[in-house]
């Protein structure tokens, strides 16, 4: 009995849960909460016969997800109003885009920050407009601020003073220090309009971004949820032109690995060449399943290795050394 494997199996095929006893349900639900997949699982379990106590959990998670969805859409509307006078394209990313676009990946999804993509040339104007509309800096530290502005693919995070919600303003989808360099102009040029004037990435770019976010950036925290996004996005958009599109953004390997992992864990329909895991893929799978039935992080070594990798991906060695030195000295103060 492994809670993370149960969670993955039931997301892919809710009927699998029919045979679960109470301890197995308990472990899977707890793992789902820890992986921020509670709302998604609740959505998958809708209409499935479950024990009464599981139904109570499911109803609570469904209400919570509906509220997160409502807040996310409202936050997007607030940003739209603040930025409308600028006349710049504002592209919603990740969870907010999925719910605004009515995509399967948005069903029950937990959504924290609002992520938007705007043209790099308009970044200063966007920042000024958001500050004027009540957003404030979260990181007052000069090093962090300078680091974001020089080396990150987004502005330092802003938080709204009265609504207490964070916005990440991106100008591309990977840090400039990362080895692949996605074509940000193409992302915006091919984005598609939403009914209210906001935009989202085109179908293939949504998958490319989700794969970049999962595999080319960060330490794989929340990996099961990000991979579920990819499963749903591929399910709706298919993979006909995906590899070519990924190659244009320099993200062919990341998208292929995301496709292989999605197939291995969630049974996603992918091209034949993506149906076998490589040896390295198995490490990613091991990392993604590193949560137990108490919601605890397990496999410390694997986690640490991916944490180190996330910095390696983001920074050349000398820069990494300087970054760690600054962070270490600050930790001593």
């Amino acid at each position, binding site marked *: 009995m492994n809670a993370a494997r149960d969670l993955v199996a039931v997301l892919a095929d809710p009927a699998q849960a029919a045979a679960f006893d*109470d301890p197995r349900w308990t472990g899977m639900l707890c793992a789902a909460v820890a992986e921020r997949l509670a709302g998604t699982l609740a959505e998958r379990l809708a209409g499935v016969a479950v024990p009464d*106590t599981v139904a109570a959990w499911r109803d609570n998670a469904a209400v*919570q997800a509906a509220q997160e969805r409502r807040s996310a859409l409202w936050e997007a509307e607030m940003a739209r109003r603040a930025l409308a006078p600028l006349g710049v394209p504002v592209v919603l990313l990740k969870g907010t885009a999925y719910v605004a676009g009515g995509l399967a990946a948005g069903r029950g999804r937990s959504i924290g920050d609002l992520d938007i993509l705007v043209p790099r040339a308009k970044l200063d104007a966007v920042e000024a407009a958001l500050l004027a509309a009540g957003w404030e800096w979260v990181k007052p530290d000069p090093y962090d601020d300078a680091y974001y502005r020089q080396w990150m693919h987004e502005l330092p995070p802003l938080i709204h003073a009265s609504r207490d919600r964070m916005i990440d303003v991106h100008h591309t989808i990977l840090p400039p220090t990362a080895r692949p360099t996605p074509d940000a102009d193409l992302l915006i040029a091919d984005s598609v309009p939403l009914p209210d004037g906001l935009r989202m990435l085109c179908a293939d770019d949504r998958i490319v971004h989700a794969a970049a976010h999962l595999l080319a950036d960060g330490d794989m925290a929340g990996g099961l949820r990000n991979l579920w996004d990819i499963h749903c996005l591929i399910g709706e958009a298919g993979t006909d032109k995906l590899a070519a599109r990924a190659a244009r953004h320099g993200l062919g390997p990341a998208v292929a690995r995301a496709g292989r992992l999605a197939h291995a864990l969630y049974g996603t329909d992918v091209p034949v060449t993506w149906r076998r895991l490589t040896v390295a893929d198995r490490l990613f799978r091991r990392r993604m399943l590193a949560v137990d039935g108490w919601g*605890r992080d397990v496999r410390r070594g694997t986690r640490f290795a991916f944490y180190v990798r996330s910095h390696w991906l983001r920074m050349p060695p000398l820069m990494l050394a300087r970054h760690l030195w600054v962070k270490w000295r600050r930790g001593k103060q």
Partner: protein
Amino acid sequence: MRHAIGLKIGPVAFRVGSDWAGPIAALADLYRDYPPPTGVPDYTVRLEAARPWRRWIRPSVTVRGDHMLPDALPLDLAHGVLAAEIGMNLQLALGERRWLLLHASSVERDGRALIMSGESGSGKSTLAAVLATRGWRLMGDEFALIDLATGAARAFPRATSLKNGAIDEMLRHVPDARFGAALTGTPKGRLRHLRPDAQAIARMDAPAIPALILFPQFGRPEAAEAMGPAETFVRLTQASTNYVPLGRAGYDALTRLVTAVPTVAVDYPDTDTAVGMVEQLWAALP
């Protein structure tokens, strides 16, 4: 986890796991009269060592679980039962969406509920515990759960958490055997838990219709002043942990509560005076 217990308090079931036997044994003793939960719990609470070696060396309890605060300070292992209480409260405060949660104590008589809200130190827990010795049913000392559909109050009768002077006050009213172990030097000072009586446990699943809301304030000259629905509404939004995320449903439930239920701010110098004031206000209800 190595040590674990299931607890059902009113309509909410918890699973509490611990790296140490002590906190679980203390919980089992405190909740020995409660029926064990069945099925799948609503929430998981973990009492963990912050680092693996802290299980043995200078052991301290970090409270984690389904829902947690990022910068919660660890507690002394001797205060493990307080850590569990904090963990259970956090799950409800951060995760619960089935009811509107009011930070309040509540008691019931004849199917009708008296809800007492106020800051920590207002005396609401002590007052509820004393009323429970005078024929009222204790519904809870921490949260009143307001049903979003019906407006009824649900009980959450966890062990009453008494601090400092309130412990001595309650020892005047109930035998020492009803109390849990004394905890000294907690972040809240001296602390002792009082086990709810048999009636509170036996009827913990019975809802009650809210009939009176009080804002008690201990340590002041006797005074009672009616509060209008607008002020009650604002004060209860501040006393609710999930009013904002509930959105429209929370607004509707709270509006219904404050327009249907009379509210009084009650200042009192001592518990006996407060009990008299409560009985008088209760008798005057339509």
